[in-house]
């Protein structure tokens, strides 16, 4: 009796070191929180040294610019949580944007153009997901292949033409992507709604639970009866769908589309995702990290421009931030172990 009582107390003291944190503590421990802090500091700093940075006009443009990136980053976060990667999002944007452009230019109504845009995107995602899930091929290789394929298909379909006349629904199409509602650009509203949906899915849906389980331990998820293959296919379809949605809005904003739409966009999106706290090893990530990470990438880009830094340097900063973000994650991971 005394022995078991003693053991029980030993257990309790053991456990105190591993308490589950309270709500506030849990938020403070996440990467998106610290990135948000950094973001606010940069914004305050830029606001004091530049008159234009906090101008309504600049804020409007900046939020709209990162909205496209963040929408794609929501899908990318989901892929990365499963331990995968999707390099094809930029090319899928090109292909689906061309599909929207060519159907609208041919005089089809807006819903048809939207359907063509999203379905072509999802088809590319389904091919990615199917090969990755059922042939167990590396996501890196498969989506790298799709990066080339989707871009080439965009060229084939468009025959290297530019589309800028979008048929009978042109005003509506341009208003959806380029307009504003209650002072915010429409893509920002799309981002807000999609972020809330993803937050809900991650926390309250079986699908979200399975996405994290697969990233945590693929074999365990499979042994537990999780339909791992189907979930993986769905994750790549969702990633491409987000690319399609971003592309539809972007073409409406730009007012024209060429097959080069979204070229090298995957790099910015992956940067935003990783900075937003998604771990490239899989198993952890935050829906809210996508807009926060994208905002940081865009604000830094914008700040460099306002500071008069040659735009040729942007790639250097972007690449540097990806490496830095992964490095910080690595250091944090080592400390928590």
């Amino acid at each position, binding site marked *: 009796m005394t022995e078991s009582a003693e053991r029980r107390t030993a257990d*309790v003291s053991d456990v105190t070191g591993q*308490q589950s944190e309270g709500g506030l503590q849990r938020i403070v421990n996440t990467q998106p929180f610290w990135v948000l802090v950094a973001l606010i500091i940069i914004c305050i700093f830029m606001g004091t040294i530049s008159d234009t940075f906090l101008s309504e006009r600049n804020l409007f443009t900046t939020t709209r610019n990162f909205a496209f990136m963040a929408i794609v980053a929501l899908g990318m976060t989901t892929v990365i949580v499963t331990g995968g990667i999707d390099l094809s999002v930029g090319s899928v944007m090109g292909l689906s944007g061309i599909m929207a452009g060519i159907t609208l230019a041919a005089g089809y109504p807006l819903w048809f153009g939207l359907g063509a845009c999203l379905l072509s995107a999802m088809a590319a995602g389904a091919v990615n997901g199917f090969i990755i899930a059922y042939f167990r091929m590396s996501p890196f290789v498969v989506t790298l292949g799709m990066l080339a394929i989707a871009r080439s298909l965009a060229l084939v379909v468009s025959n290297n033409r530019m589309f800028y006349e979008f048929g009978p629904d042109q005003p509506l199409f341009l208003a959806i992507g380029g307009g504003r509602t209650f002072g915010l650009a429409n893509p920002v509203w799309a981002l807000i709604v999609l972020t809330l949906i993803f937050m809900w899915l991650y926390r309250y*849906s079986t699908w979200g*639970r399975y996405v994290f389980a697969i990233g945590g331990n693929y074999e365990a998820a499979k042994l*537990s009866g999780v339909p791992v293959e189907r979930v993986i296919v769905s994750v790549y379809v969702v990633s491409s769908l987000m690319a399609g949605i971003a592309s539809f809005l972007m073409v409406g904003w730009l007012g024209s589309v060429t097959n080069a739409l979204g070229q090298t966009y995957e790099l910015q999106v992956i940067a935003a995702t990783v900075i937003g706290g998604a771990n490239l090893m899989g198993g952890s990530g935050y829906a809210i990290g996508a807009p926060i990470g994208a905002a940081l990438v865009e604000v830094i880009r914008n700040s460099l421009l306002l500071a008069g830094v040659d735009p040729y340097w942007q790639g250097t900063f972007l690449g540097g931030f990806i490496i830095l973000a992964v490095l910080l994650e690595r250091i944090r991971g080592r400390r928590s172990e």
Partner: protein
Amino acid sequence: MAVLELRRISKSFGAIRALEAVDLTIGGGEVIGLMGDNGAGKSTLVKIIAGNFPPTSGAMLIDGAEVHFSKPIEARRRGIEIVYQDLALCDNLTAAANVFLGREVKRWFGPIRYLDHKSMYDRTAEIFSELKSETRPRDVVRRMSGGQRQAVAIARTRLSDPKLVLMDEPTAAISVRQVAEVLDLIRRLKETGHAVVLISHRMPDVFAVCERVAVLRRGRKVADKPITDSSPEEVTALITGALHEA
């Protein structure tokens, strides 16, 4: 009636005969130790019972009815739960999420189905208190001790109230104090009427909790007797082949 009965189970991988005509009968609420050296066929036997792959020949009966499994999920549906050697847990999820993985409790809100976190936390807490484990449902598995991980893995098996729990080397990689915890968990399973097959290398564990011990050597069953009629020395001799049969 026997919960599980194996009749002349054999398994070959190409030219290698992993199991040869193994018979094994497990009664309700019985705790049986399955011992043998590396390569004796223990893992192969567990994988057949668990439904990872079918035997080359022989029959498997649950409650007297013959069964054929091609996937682990089929074995689980028939009341066989497995605690894998590497525990098969998702480190990034909470204890409760692991316990309910693949069997989440959901609620309807109009047409929308969502995870019922509260009832999963509550049920997990209940199971842990039945197991007299201090593990907490909201803790993330990554930060748990080996004993707590065992408790999570065992709690998983309690969800469906299985007939038989197979435990593959549950004490292989944990500290002495945690071993005692795990053995307590096994006793708790027995008290609640669950049959347990304990696959282990560790003689003291088997003699502490099992009623019967079966020994495999080179794919054959060389002994199957009550623990009270045997001794660690005899079992060691059987495992190594110093003693041929008992």
